């Protein structure tokens, strides 16, 4: 127990929470935007994985990490656009569409990697680039705090900026208002002239954009290469975070950090030989409990009302 506290109260541990939260937060923001437009995007996992690969490939072929990042975003948005086309135009069920995207990503990324490099497991033969870490002037010199909040990956800072952006997008902009209107009541939105299909396209592609930044972080920050199935369920954790955050930007961000904390904890506990398998289930368990409490209260409320 002493060892545990020793680990928890280090600046390294606090630093690592930001690091592991980054991909979860990005994907959870993606889940949030599409959910608010009334679309459950369970393909986040697949979108992240695909963009992790495209980021590595483009950065390796162009020699630029930043062009790689654009490539990752383009890859993720393309997959989201394909999903949007099938669900909005051809009326594929969104859940089945999401399963298809995940299946495609899991095998398809390995397939593409093999075609381009002859390897199936990792992209280690490619000289792909990493996005840089950023030191914040002045703050980096503050004892303790500097070690925790400075020196992070550029996408870590971007993820927090993205959370603020999504908050204002949903609350304060016409597009955000339209997204919420479409999600709450598409017929009503349609009747006052909102182009429902167009808004849903935008929401899904934005969702793909955010998830893809999470994917880019995985292969150009968290690790320095692409490895098979490297997102390892982060897309599902993101759905959990969005769900437990009650589909608000603030709630989603806080639960993303909570789940990031749980994951950082499980990484730290591996050093202490405490079964990490069980700790990794904590985000999912809390989500189920949260959902049950919420649903129970809703049911009681509607019974009282009726």
């Amino acid at each position, binding site marked *: 127990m002493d060892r545990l506290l020793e680990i928890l109260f280090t600046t390294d541990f606090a630093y690592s929470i930001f690091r592991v939260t980054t991909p979860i937060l990005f994907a959870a923001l993606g889940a949030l935007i599409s959910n608010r437009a009334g679309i459950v995007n*369970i393909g986040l996992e697949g979108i992240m994985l695909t963009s992790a690969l495209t980021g590595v490939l483009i950065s390796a072929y162009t020699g630029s990490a930043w062009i790689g990042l654009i490539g990752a975003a383009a890859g993720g948005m393309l997959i989201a656009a394909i999903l949007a086309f099938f669900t909005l135009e051809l009326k594929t069920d969104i859940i089945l*569409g999401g399963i298809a995207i995940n299946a495609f990503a899991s095998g398809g990324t390995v397939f593409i990697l093999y075609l381009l490099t002859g390897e*199936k497991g990792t992209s280690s033969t490619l000289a792909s680039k990493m996005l840089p870490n950023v030191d914040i002037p002045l703050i980096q010199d503050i004892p303790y705090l500097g070690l925790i909040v400075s020196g992070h990956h550029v996408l870590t800072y971007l993820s927090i900026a993205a959370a603020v952006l999504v908050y204002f997008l949903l609350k304060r902009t016409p597009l955000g208002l339209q997204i919420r209107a479409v999600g709450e009541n598409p017929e009503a939105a349609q009747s006052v002239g909102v182009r429902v299909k167009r808004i849903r396209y935008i929401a899904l592609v934005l969702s793909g954009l955010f998830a893809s930044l999470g994917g880019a972080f995985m292969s150009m920050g968290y690790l320095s290469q692409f490895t098979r199935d490297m997102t390892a369920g982060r897309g599902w954790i993101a759905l959990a975070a969005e769900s437990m955050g009650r589909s608000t930007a603030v709630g989603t961000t806080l639960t993303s950090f909570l789940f990031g904390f749980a994951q950082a904890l499980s990484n730290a506990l591996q050093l202490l030989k405490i079964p990490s*398998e069980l700790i990794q289930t904590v985000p999912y368990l809390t989500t189920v409990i949260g959902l049950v409490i919420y*649903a129970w209260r809703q049911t009681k409320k509607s019974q009282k009302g009726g």
Partner: protein
Amino acid sequence: MFKLKYFELFRTLAVVLIALLLTMLFIALISEQKIETMRIFLTEPLSSKSHIGNVIEMAIPLMFTGLAMALLFRMNLFNLGAEGIFFFSGLVAAAIGIQTGLSPFIHPVLAIAAGGIVGALIAFIPGFLKARLNANELVTSLMFNSILLGVGLYILNYYMRDASAYTTSSYKIASSAQLVRIIPGTRVHIGLLIVLVFIALAYIFVYKTRWGYELRMTGANREFAEYSGIKTGRVIIYVHLIAGFTAGIGGSVEVLGMHPRFDWVALPGYGFDGALVAMLAKNGPLAVVGSAFFLAYIRVGAEMMARYSDVPAEMLAVIQSAILLLVSADQFLKFLKNRMLLKEAEKNG
């Protein structure tokens, strides 16, 4: 001109055809020996007794999860929990399978029954939450998949792991628990008969019983069914129980039939494949057989292709997702249906 009622079948066949053409296109683009690779993919699964056996072995778990998913989809329930249940029930069956001293008949029956019951109990939770609290069964079932994986790996690593094995796997499953092989020269096991019995029972259940009628009514329109006196909450719960039981039996049968040790360290994917099987079968219990065999055939074809040619088996993931996207696309070829409707109306009018 063919009849309108065959339209769905025609559409499914069109999807299958597109998938095969897409496969051929990929091979033509990638392979050095195009014709030979195409031949391997298309005919190798039928080239020998053991290869045909591979197709049947592969079809067994797909039929189990396909059936479970078809029952849930028919109710318009998007519960994807078959994935986690398949894994966890397989682990439960293996936990009983590694014990010794049981007789060769009792042992597998006990292990499979335990797996099935555990599956039903797990599925009961999202079913109950949906029926009583209207909690979204999709999210809860997805969360359960991850929870079951974590708990399962914990049990595997701390209670069942054989330290002398080279990989993460359990102790050997006792020979008394392994399922009997029923076709000599292949690994096809008695699970084939079990799943066929399940499918026949499911067909009778859905189309010939009162409960099945309630299931179909509730699936078509829950409010209307409730209004006409069906307790839809109860229907949701028993469909979950049956689907969980089916997926649980499936996982147990797969482990005892095909695995000398329990060695899944990730979710095996059969649950999500079950969604594809169910969609191809248009949620019909009998059609699950055909679609599971189709999927098994192209999988074995892809494995053979990876083994004997220069195209990797992962190509199939692309094909499978194309099939799933197209087969569940309501609007795909809808224009043909509309044209047919118009013609028929003109003829009759």
